[in-house]
């Protein structure tokens, strides 16, 4: 591609941003492009390709900490730390299949910039909760750092939190430091068949508030459950719960879980391997993959209060023929709507506004993403604050300008 700057170290990233500042140019920040199709469709003068900043720079398993250059492939980090029985506990999802890009191509910088998480979000948090330190170049062309390499740190403002989920609109991260907690020794899934979303919501509420201490709770209505290979149960909806830990603990908590779930219907279980496959499918929203039967549909990602999940999902099903995946005990809704020029925005926004939370348009054609708000619009005072924060890092709008909102 033309107009691509591919720096190989942090100093060159600073030079690249300085180049853009000097020439009044805008830059599109890209790692390996796995999430490039998310966000407002905007135009940039040049691409800042950060994939050349690659490699783990520090890994100390006994300290539960890893530092890597921002363009390091997630897959490389996963493989490295798995060797020490550790993982990125926030379970970063892979957007590749959903967006029609290759699987497993994301970078650690991209995972942080998009504040990725997965089904374990309800127990272990998102990227923001594991992000300890950063080196970055602001849209002012200045190199700065924040945080450190220790878990407990309140020295100065926590700029890491701002960078996580900023989609490259504040700074180009060059190196990030994250926690690497131990991964569970084993896992098992217990599921209940054929619940409607309201009943499933009640069961999920009961389970996540119990001593079963599950690390994931999802409800997969019949049409989407049928597309997940790990589930061999015939036909209906599946409401699934994941138990992780040491074996004696799982045995005990499984009994707690089964006692609560038994009155709701027929129970089934998945052992370690199938359980992993199921939650990978939920994490990556596989039933809505671009290559699958829902591939033409518009995809919204909605975060709401878990207790309101079922009503949000049901409204979208009834009024827009949506297909729904409920994760986070009902707090995360993946909605696949029939393709439309307005992406069903009015309905999605009003439904989410009534329940509380936010919705992001994840998959839609470029023309649609250019015409409507992709990220949740903010009330005036908050939007003005957001804009001032943006300008505190990037007053000229150099980095990913307009990717989140017009002017941001």
């Amino acid at each position: 591609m033309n107009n691509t700057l591919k720096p190989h170290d942090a100093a060159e990233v600073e030079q690249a941003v300085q180049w853009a500042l000097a020439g009044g140019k805008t830059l599109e920040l890209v790692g390996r492009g796995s999430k490039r199709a998310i966000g407002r469709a905007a135009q940039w003068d040049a691409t800042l390709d950060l994939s050349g900043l690659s490699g783990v720079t520090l890994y100390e398993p006994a300290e539960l900490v890893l530092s890597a250059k921002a363009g390091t492939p997630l897959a490389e980090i996963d493989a490295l730390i798995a060797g020490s029985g550790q993982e990125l506990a926030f379970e970063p999802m892979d957007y590749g299949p959903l967006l029609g890009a290759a699987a497993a191509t994301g970078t650690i910088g991209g995972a942080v910039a998009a504040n990725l998480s997965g089904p374990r979000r309800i127990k272990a948090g998102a990227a923001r909760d594991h992000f300890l330190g950063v080196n970055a170049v602001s849209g002012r062309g200045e190199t700065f750092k924040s945080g450190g390499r220790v878990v407990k740190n309140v020295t100065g403002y926590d700029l890491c939190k701002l960078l996580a989920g900023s989609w490259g609109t504040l700074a180009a991260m060059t190196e990030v430091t994250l926690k690497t907690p131990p991964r569970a020794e084993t896992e098992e899934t217990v599921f209940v068949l054929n619940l409607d979303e309201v009943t499933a919501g009640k069961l999920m509420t009961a389970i996540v508030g119990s001593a079963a201490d599950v690390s994931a709770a999802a409800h997969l209505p019949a049409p989407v459950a049928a597309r997940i290979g790990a589930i061999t149960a015939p036909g209906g909806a599946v409401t699934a719960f994941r138990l992780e830990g040491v074996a004696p603990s799982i045995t005990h908590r499984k009994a707690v879980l089964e006692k609560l779930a038994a009155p709701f219907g027929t129970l089934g279980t998945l052992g370690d391997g199938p359980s992993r496959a199921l939650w990978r499918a939920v994490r990556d929203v596989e039933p809505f993959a671009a290559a699958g039967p829902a591939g033409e549909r518009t995809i919204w990602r909605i975060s709401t209060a878990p207790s309101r999940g079922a009503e949000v999902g049901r409204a979208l099903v009834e009024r827009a023929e949506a297909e729904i995946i409920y994760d986070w005990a009902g707090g995360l809704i993946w909605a696949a709507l029939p393709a439309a020029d307005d992406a069903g925005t009015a309905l999605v926004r009003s439904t989410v506004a009534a329940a509380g939370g936010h919705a992001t348009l994840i998959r839609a054609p470029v023309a649609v993403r250019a015409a409507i708000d992709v990220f949740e619009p903010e009330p005036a005072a908050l939007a003005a604050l957001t804009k001032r924060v943006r300008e505190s890092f990037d007053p000229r709008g150099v980095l990913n300008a307009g990717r989140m909102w017009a002017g941001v």
Partner: protein
Amino acid sequence: MPVAMPQSDEAVLARRAEIVAALQHIVPGEGVIALEHAMRPYESDGLTAYRQLPMVVVLPETTEQVAAVLSYCQREGIKVVPRGAGTSLSGGALPLSDGVLLGMAKFNHIREIDFDNRVAVVEPGVTNLAVSQAVEHAGFYYAPDPSSQIACTIGGNVAENSGGVHCLKYGVTTNNVLGCELVLMTGEIVRLGGRHLDSGGYDLLGIVTGSEGMLGVVTEVTVRILKKPESARAALVGFATSEDAGDCVGRIIGAGIIPGGMEMMDRPAIHAAEEFVHAGYPLDVEALLIVELDGPRAEVDHLLERVQETARQCRAVTYRVSNSEDERLLFWAGRKAAFPAVGRISPDYYCMDGTIPRGQLPLVLRRMQDMSVKYGLRVANVFHAGDGNLHPLILYDANKPGELERAEQFGADILRLCVEVGGVLTGEHGVGVEKRDLMPAMFSEADLNQQQRVKCAFDDKGLLNPGKVFPTLHRCAELGRIHVHAGQVAFPDLPRF
């Protein structure tokens, strides 16, 4: 006072009577305190070496009053210092002579408990412990547990991003807060987050948490509540050397075990605590670990076996496991009383709060001993071993000339050492005024400037809690300038790396 605070604005002080009257108009009744003796309780926080009477104290009761006070002060150019319970150990709530002290104590109601969404919606003046107590009947609790939890408030916890002994497993405040209502210095009221997870835009809640009351005033907080673990047992493990103890901590964590709490004490702290509470601590060891596992009993027992085996490999010389809840609490009693226990053996003590990579502990303890000799002051150490947060207690006597100054220099040396070995200046107490001038040991000017620019985005006149965190105050306009080094640009035309 060794740390210089922003110069008093004489023009503001000259208008004091008018300002008091205006505040009384906003917060009628007994909400404004202007008499010197009545303001005296507000002159310092938990860092009592620093004292300053505010110009006036105001105690609002509603968000609208907070907004009206702030917009009035913004319009009139008056500084504001917010305060919760005043338990800060870094001077975060130290008043300014020309500033309004905004006390949030009257915001002390729990507004809603929502078990279905596992959240509690509370006002900022509610104490940390009161949140746990309000949900205890249903078997829930609020996880962050700073040792001041009986007194400190949730609003202060948000401002300081407070931790506690359980944060390796359950996170600190920022991991346990889902939303807040925030009043900006302009008086604008914004809502961040809610009962859902993550932000639809920038994570402003994340930057507000730990911003030491400098970005806005929190008037409502939504916190996550967790189901209480079914059981907890603690092991008390003694070591002949701190190296062995440090090795044991690393090996437990390296083996994939994340204890609910893991605390270490050194010999002086062990002796002081044992003499004070008779917890049954061994007195012939150099280091003592409390390792607490929590969860289902089957899990706790299973993991304790592994901890015991690990301790044996690390040459533990004593090992006891609690066999009852009373015994577990007794193990903790000594640790929890460590500060007052040290207070019994020394007229004064100065509590530090650096964090280090765990593996650096033996080195840091050795270097601290050298410093102890150099400054002629004793030091006792308690340590949140699981997360590397070190609390050296420097023993001194304020009545002896020069000892406070030596203690402060000793403390500064310890914190610089923490940074030198890859750690940070403060793990949970905050920068405040106490560590403000040490910030350049950890951050470059560019790092600090970027933090201050964020401050400018929230408070462009710099009126909210100025003089804290940043060693040098810059005007926002000055920070806003862009420096393009056009001459040095590597890609004058079309760049291809």
